[in-house]
């Protein structure tokens, strides 16, 4: 049965936990087959950069503060088919997010265009951020 908007809002507010100190977070969402990665809880806006990646930019500084990687199962299958050794990067049921960003670059044949240069820099920036925070997500997509 569909909840009324009033009850939906009440339930959301009830479920909302008091936010303490924000910690960078990455997690795999099975419903969307996507991994969301955030290094800040600043206000942000999103911009899709390719069929796989949407980047979150802070409104204050216009800096990258996170991303959404879509189609994770397909990405993993593609990477494994081209780089079988990538399977070893899944350890204790978790995958380092930086490895996913780099795997995407290593398995793509990007032509030398200005658009692709920006794309590569965006992936590299995200990989560096993920490395810095040692971000990893449950690899339940394997």
């Amino acid at each position, binding site marked *: 049965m*569909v909840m009324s*908007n009033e009850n*939906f809002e009440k339930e959301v507010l009830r*479920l909302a*936990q008091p*936010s303490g100190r924000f910690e960078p977070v990455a997690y795999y969402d099975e*419903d*969307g087959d996507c991994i969301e990665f955030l290094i800040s809880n600043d206000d942000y*806006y*999103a911009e899709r950069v390719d069929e796989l990646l949407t980047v979150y930019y802070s409104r204050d500084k216009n800096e990258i503060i996170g991303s959404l990687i879509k189609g994770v199962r397909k990405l993993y299958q593609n990477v494994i088919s081209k780089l079988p050794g990538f399977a070893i990067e899944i350890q204790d049921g978790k995958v380092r997010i930086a490895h996913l960003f780099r795997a995407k670059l290593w398995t793509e044949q990007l032509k030398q265009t200005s658009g692709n240069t920006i794309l590569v820099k965006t992936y590299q920036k995200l990989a560096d951020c993920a490395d810095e925070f040692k971000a990893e997500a449950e690899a339940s997509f394997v």
Partner: protein
Amino acid sequence: METEGKTTRRGSLTVGAVDPTTGKTCEIIISHKKVQKVCSRSKGQTLDCAKNVPYALQHPRHIYEGLCRDEDETESDDAGWRCYCCIPPHAYNKDGSEREPWPNEVFLVFANVEKVAYNWYWHVCDENDSTQPKGYKTRFLKEVL
């Protein structure tokens, strides 16, 4: 359109949405886990979830279906997948204070084929049509509303 209900289906909430194929209301599910993750970030994100997600699902300016993908993927991969797009009457700052909608942005809600809303955010609008997300012409298979 709305009926009183309660928390349902293994720790999930439900909310009404426009079904573009019938014009009637359908049920969209949002997991407790997703709500808790989003709401732990800021009061602004909590209010986006509590107020703007239902608004987008019930008052969409556009609804898109399916993703444009690589040539080796079939359209059926995304059949039924939908993106609801709107400009809600309000946006929320990080501290939860209400404000005008963010300029040059639209609010998007994504629901999978099982009618589970799994993500939502403000996205840059198209430079020629401020009611649609940037890149909408090449991003989605079809616009169903």
